[in-house]
């Protein structure tokens, strides 16, 4: 029997973690390396390290898939680096002109990204009628006179009526050929300005996506590996590399989702509170049915408001490197020299946890004179964790708390508000495990008649389900096992016919590989 292996890599702010899993999702090897300034170098180091950890060297050739959760895109936006120039086209005039595209962007980011903006006549009303017929001539003129690396197209109510955006893509192809185009209905949900922002960011990131894909391919080829690569996205699911190349903005924020999904897999529970304790902070999230609970609030990326659904995460200033008496400061990666247990002079939460008997870390015991003060720090930390657990638990105290991350030993064995504390094996690399075991998914948001809407409602909901499933398959899911995992309706007011916003998400395991 020939086994195949896969590698999960998660690039975090401090560390890049990597794991190798077999067909039965058993962890065969794990490694942790510091994240490098250029991200790629640390990624390569972690990949090398984890492959070196394999029990038998020949197993390396069995690696057939690599799943990557990375901060490349986030860093590119935060640092205004390697971003493409985008022609920003909105379909909506005479509506929407009171707030032109990119109005609230930080000046330097707008200067870096914007090749030009235009609002042309077009777009739809909430009920599907056209606000104005699409001004095709204006579209042609704009794209012809605005040289750009990519084009972002956002039509009013396109998540419900996508035809105008799709026509624009055809016009652009006919007009100027092979320039990448981001269509907003494929990127985000209702809320014009936020969806437009996300669509423009997506278009600006095509080059970054090409670079990271090339760097990864090069690193894999250097090791003689022939693999399929996947990227993790913000909801804890995967997309195939050619899909990620079209939707690079979706890779932003995959870290917390990976860690939540990894915690679910490693602990075997699907409904839990997850605490990921790192070097500078503890991130708490909630697993519902195996997926991260999503935040209701809008997400800002590099000073730009988007309407991405990110995991609902509460961060508190508690990490292994957190300096006792100087919170929220952390010694970060210098913990190996500065902490008391490593012979340093800085009291950290790692020292406090060791003094409290919660773990054995370091090269020497905690000096006696520190014990009283560190005990106080542990009590304060326990209270902060209990308070945070209560905040994210929304009143339920019957779920377990899964402790993951390199600093998980900081947490007490009993946490008020949690039924029990579970510490799964390989908890320190749960995020990389999460990337490796993730499903592929697709989602769609549209407007359908409220209940009582008759056969057209049923047909529209079926269409939305089919489209979500098709998007999941395009992202890499096996068509035979993809299922609808989420379906929600939000009522709309002030309409002639009662209607709802329909949100559908489909997900499934990756399609089997040939051979």
């Amino acid at each position, binding site marked *: 029997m020939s086994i195949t292996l896969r590698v999960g890599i998660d690039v975090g702010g401090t560390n890049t973690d990597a794991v190798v899993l077999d067909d039965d999702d058993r962890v065969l090897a794990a490694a942790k390396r510091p994240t490098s300034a250029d991200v790629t170098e640390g990624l390569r180091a972690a990949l090398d390290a984890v492959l070196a950890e394999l029990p038998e060297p020949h197993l390396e050739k069995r690696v057939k898939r690599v799943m990557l959760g990375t901060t490349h895109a986030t860093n590119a936006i935060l640092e205004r680096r390697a971003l493409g120039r985008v022609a920003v086209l909105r379909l909506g005039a005479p509506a929407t002109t009171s707030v032109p595209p990119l109005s609230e962007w930080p000046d330097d980011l707008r200067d870096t990204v914007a090749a030009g903006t235009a609002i042309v006549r077009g777009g739809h009303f909430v009920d599907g009628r056209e*606000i104005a017929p699409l001004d095709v001539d204006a579209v042609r003129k704009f794209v012809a006179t605005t040289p750009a690396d990519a084009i972002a197209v956002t039509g009013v109510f396109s998540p419900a009526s996508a035809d105008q955006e799709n026509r624009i893509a055809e016009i652009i192809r006919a007009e100027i050929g092979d320039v990448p185009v981001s269509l907003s209905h494929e990127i985000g949900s209702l*809320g014009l*300005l936020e969806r437009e922002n996300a669509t423009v960011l997506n278009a600006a990131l095509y080059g970054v996506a090409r670079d990271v894909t090339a760097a990864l391919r090069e690193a894999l080829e250097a090791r003689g590996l022939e693999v399929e690569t996947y990227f993790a996205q913000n909801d804890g699911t995967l997309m195939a590399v050619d899909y990620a190349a079209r939707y690079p903005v979706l890779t932003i924020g995959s870290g917390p989702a990976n860690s939540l999904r990894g915690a679910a897999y490693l602990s075997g529970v699907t409904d839990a509170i997850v605490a990921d304790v790192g070097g500078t902070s503890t991130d708490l999230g909630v697993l519902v049915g195996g997926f991260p609970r999503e935040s209701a609030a809008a997400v800002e990326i590099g000073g730009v408001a988007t309407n991405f659904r990110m995991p609902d995460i509460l961060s508190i200033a508690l990490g292994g490197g957190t300096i006792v008496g100087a919170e929220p400061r952390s010694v970060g990666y210098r913990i190996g020299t500065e902490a008391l247990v490593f012979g340093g002079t800085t009291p950290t939460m790692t020292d406090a946890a060791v003094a409290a008997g919660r773990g054995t870390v370091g090269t020497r015991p905690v000096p006696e004179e520190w014990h009283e003060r560190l005990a106080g720090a542990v009590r304060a930390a326990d209270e902060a964790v209990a308070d945070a657990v209560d905040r994210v638990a929304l009143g339920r105290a019957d779920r377990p708390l899964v402790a993951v991350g390199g600093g998980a030993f900081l947490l007490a064995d009993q946490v008020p508000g949690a039924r029990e504390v579970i510490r799964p094996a390989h908890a320190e690399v749960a995020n990389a495990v999460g990337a490796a075991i993730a499903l592929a998914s697709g989602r769609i948001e549209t407007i359908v008649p409220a209940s009582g809407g008759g056969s057209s409602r049923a047909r529209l909901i079926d269409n939305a389900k089919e489209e979500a499933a098709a998007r999941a398959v395009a992202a890499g899911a096996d068509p035979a096992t993809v299922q609808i995992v989420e379906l929600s309706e939000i009522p709309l007011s*002030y309409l002639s016919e009662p209607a709802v916003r329909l949100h559908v998400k489909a997900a499934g395991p990756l399609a089997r590989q040939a051979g």
Partner: protein
Amino acid sequence: MVKAPRMQARITLEDVAALARGCAVLGTGGGGDVRPGAIAARRAIREHGDVPLVTLDELPGDALVLPLSGIGAPTVSNEMVHGEDEPVRIAEEIERIFGRPPAAVMSSEIGGGNGVAPVAWAARLGLPLLDADAMGRAFPEVQMVSMYVAGIPANLVVMSDVVGNVVTIRPVDGLWSEQIARAVCVAAGSSALMADYVLTARECAGAVIEGTVTRAIAVGRATEGAADPLAALTAELGAVRLITGKLADLERRTTGGFARGTATVEGTGDDRGRTLTLEIQNENLVAVEDGRVRAMVPDLITVVDSQTATAIQTEGLRYGQRVTVLAWPCDPLWRTPKGLETAGPRAFGYDLDYLPVEKIA
């Protein structure tokens, strides 16, 4: 520390964030999201310049004041954002009707999004904004305005939509005004700009609530850089701190087009052992502790984040939030018999005799 009243002659780019924060506080949980209005206001100021803020006595007696508000579904107006020209078309129609152009724009409702967006409309029209509104807070129904309480007839409504349609309604009363305006709004794609109760500066005296824009900005500024934002906000509002604690229960129901609900706040710290319940209908209307009412509409009740003193709207309430409930007196206009009949507890279906917050809190 007592702050000297700030002379607010114009609204600048830097004032918009403070105005938005203040409008959210005055929204008493409702009034809609302040962010879209703030984005439009900043954009309009960049494009057209600062907006002069005028008081009633700075306007000639026959100057026309144009109260403007957006109506429709927030989901729609956040997607089909307003065009630039809706306020222009309304102003042109007003000029056709009255034979002279409006002299100032006024917010119909200072609480929530309709408190901020008029800055954008005034900037677009090149008109000053009147330092006043028709509520001094947020209310859910169109007749709950100071002009109605003052006995001014609701006999003219002008609406404009995103494609350029202008509709003039001459309703027989406020009820019809609401019904026809709503039908027009639906036909226009569920979002429109509306002017009602167009009146002269002379008629405004006693029929609008003055100073509310300045007040909203001052409320928003109070927490800026404050060491204790909550104390700063409480002092600026002259509010009573009803309770500081944790949101322990939240029951929501949607009936009759209103988001109704009951929120329960359990005290923490000094307030441990106490429990306050809030009755909600779009806005926070009644606060009860141990069966005793501690504040009720039309007095203002707002839930804020205990740490940042940021107002939390009713749809943003979540279990576990650390909140403080503040209450403070409404404008005296609402405490008159007609005011209480229009927007007192019984107007919202509560069998309560109104008692001022400063007597019962």
